């Protein structure tokens, strides 16, 4: 098995001014399941391909088990990759697709057959060994791609959005199955996704990327409870965290002109962004003491278990792209659309970010 370390990995594509990756540094432990998550175009695939050796870093190094691999060809890195569109060889049967790497490495036929069969059984593909990829369903193809990856027991797996081409139900099933498989094989796994739910449910740790920069690397719960900056706060969690503009002067927090009665946590004077997750937003009477501001109910979404209430508030209080405030509430206590309600926020449950840098103001 293997540990993987990124040491100031920077990638600039030829002819492009912006860096696809800027000085990425973090470590992945042996046997660890790390999820790379971030919006589309943030550089996840690029980072994965650099590990695979399909792309080379402009600057910086990737170390596997402490050894710089930048001069090792992809096939000699003992790494397997599952591509987003699976990249199955259309002219080969399932058996030969799975056994491709073994054949390249000159594994004797009998042993190859045995190993392919084992992998196929693990993935419940044993009935399909003689079919070609064109004759399989999307989920089956996905399994074949996994089979090809696991059959030669590589030190690490790389997966690039392997579930994005499956339907929602299958995706949930496969999510659990991949986690199980990784634990069973004990292999190091780098898993790329743009879906924060996948990131939260699958990884031992999650690395959040935005515009080529690592925002935070942490276990899912830590990421949720202590986002390092506004981006992570907004990206992790659904519906997304509400952000309000505020100012802090002499221990008093104001949202707009309105002072908040509760005592603000210790922080210096200045502009802040207040992050409140929808489940931490309370709907109260507009005249209530607990109301830090008021809003008009714009939309109510009933999801059964809970209800999302979208509220329009004074635009000067939100971020330009922040939109309205969303609160989750119990199904019964839902206000009418158009009603004016008070919005209550418990400052002990909110996150504070510096308005200029976006960094969390929680003392570390």
């Amino acid at each position, binding site marked *: 098995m293997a540990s993987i370390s990124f040491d100031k990995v920077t990638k*600039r594509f030829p002819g492009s001014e912006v860096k696809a990756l800027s000085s990425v540094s973090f470590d992945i432990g042996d046997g660890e399941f790390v999820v790379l998550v971030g919006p589309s175009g943030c550089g996840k695939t690029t980072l994965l391909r650099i590990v695979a050796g399909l792309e080379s870093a*402009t600057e910086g190094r990737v170390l596997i088990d402490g050894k710089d*691999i930048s001069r090792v060809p*992809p096939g000699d890195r003992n790494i397997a990759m599952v591509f987003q569109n699976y990249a199955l060889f259309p002219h080969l049967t399932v058996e030969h697709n799975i056994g491709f790497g073994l054949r390249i490495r000159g594994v004797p036929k009998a042993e190859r057959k045995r190993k392919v069969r084992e992998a196929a059984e693990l993935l419940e593909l044993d009935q399909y060994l003689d079919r070609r990829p064109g004759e399989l369903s999307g989920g089956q193809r996905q399994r074949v791609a996994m089979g090809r990856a696991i059959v030669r027991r590589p030190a690490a797996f790389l997966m690039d959005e392997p579930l994005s081409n499956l339907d929602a139900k299958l995706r949930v099933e496969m999510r659990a199955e991949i986690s199980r498989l990784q634990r069973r094989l004990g292999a190091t796994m780098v898993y790329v996704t743009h879906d924060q739910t996948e990131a939260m449910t699958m990884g031992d740790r999650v690395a959040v990327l935005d515009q080529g920069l690592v925002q935070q690397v942490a276990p899912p719960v830590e990421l949720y409870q202590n986002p390092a900056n506004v981006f992570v706060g907004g990206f992790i969690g659904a519906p997304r965290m509400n952000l309000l503009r505020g100012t802090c002067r002499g221990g008093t927090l104001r949202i707009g002109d309105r002072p908040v009665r509760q005592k603000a946590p210790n922080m210096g004077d200045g502009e802040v962004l207040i992050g409140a997750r929808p489940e931490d937003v309370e709907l109260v009477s507009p005249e209530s003491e607990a109301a830090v501001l008021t809003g008009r109910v714009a939309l109510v979404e009933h999801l059964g278990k809970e209800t999302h209430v979208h509220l329009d508030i004074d635009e000067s209080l939100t971020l330009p792209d922040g939109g309205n405030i969303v609160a989750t509430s119990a199904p019964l206590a839902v206000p009418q659309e158009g009603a004016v309600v008070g919005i209550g926020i418990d400052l002990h449950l909110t996150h504070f970010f510096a308005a200029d840098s976006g960094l969390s103001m929680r003392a570390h």
Partner: protein
Amino acid sequence: MVKSVGVLPGSMRRPRTSLHRQPGRSVPRQAGIFLAPALIIYLLIIVAPTVATIWISLTEWKGIGDEATFVGIDNYRRLWQDETFRASFNRTLTILVVGGVIVFACAFVFTMLLRELRSRKFVRAVIFFPNIVPPVALAIAWGVLLAPRSGLLNGFLEAIGLSSLTQTWLSPDLFFGSIMAGLIWIYTGFFATILMAGVDRVPNYFYEAAGLEGASSRQLFTRVTIPLTWDVLSVSAVLWVIVAIKTFEFIYALGGSGTDPSAASWTLPVHMYVIALGNRSPILALGQGSAIAVIMVIMVGLLVVLLRRLMRRGVVEF
């Protein structure tokens, strides 16, 4: 801190990311193994003789056995003043431009009409057919069709009572027109086939979307078909330039039934062949013939580069 020994930053040393531009692998050597056989044969069979042709075009040379004497650009100067050469040159230009317009007009008509036709595969196979028949056989067929007394065309015109329209199609006056008609007949099928396949590649939802927006069929053609098949059009135009300037066998065989054709049918390649290789005159003018060959290659090169430039814009990926 000493940063890097190399003069160029890494990204400049690697102009393109590609699988084979990877760590730990020497690209030029790998590519070299793949390229060498084709490159060597190509250099020996095409490039070296082309270079030799350029040299021969600067000499006066009556053929194997004769000593070639260097004359500089005399051959080119003499061609410039030669009426026959100018006529040949004009004929080639006529094929290129007039023939090109007609071939592409017909090819477009086929492309648009066959979109809706049920028997399109059959029609396409038939119109492409002349392109797999030996040009000599095509010339024989064309000769049979246009022969003055016993030809099919005149015979047909007489049979339907239009004797007044019969012509001596292969007389010097009409000969070149007959050749053009033959070339159009042959090559329309070729280019219609390419255009049709290009049009087939355009996903149908573009037409559906445009149709929903209320586009007329002419607008569909100019706003959807043309822009989305631009790359196919561009390649077709380039191929036509090459075909039109190079086409030789059909004209040669039609003009001479196995002998050198009369000057009334000469285009550049025929002219070149007759004076450099033909059996018409006992004295061969290899130098001058080579000069014509060089002029043709330059024409092709210039026009291809020009077309590529003009048509570069507007290629759309979908």
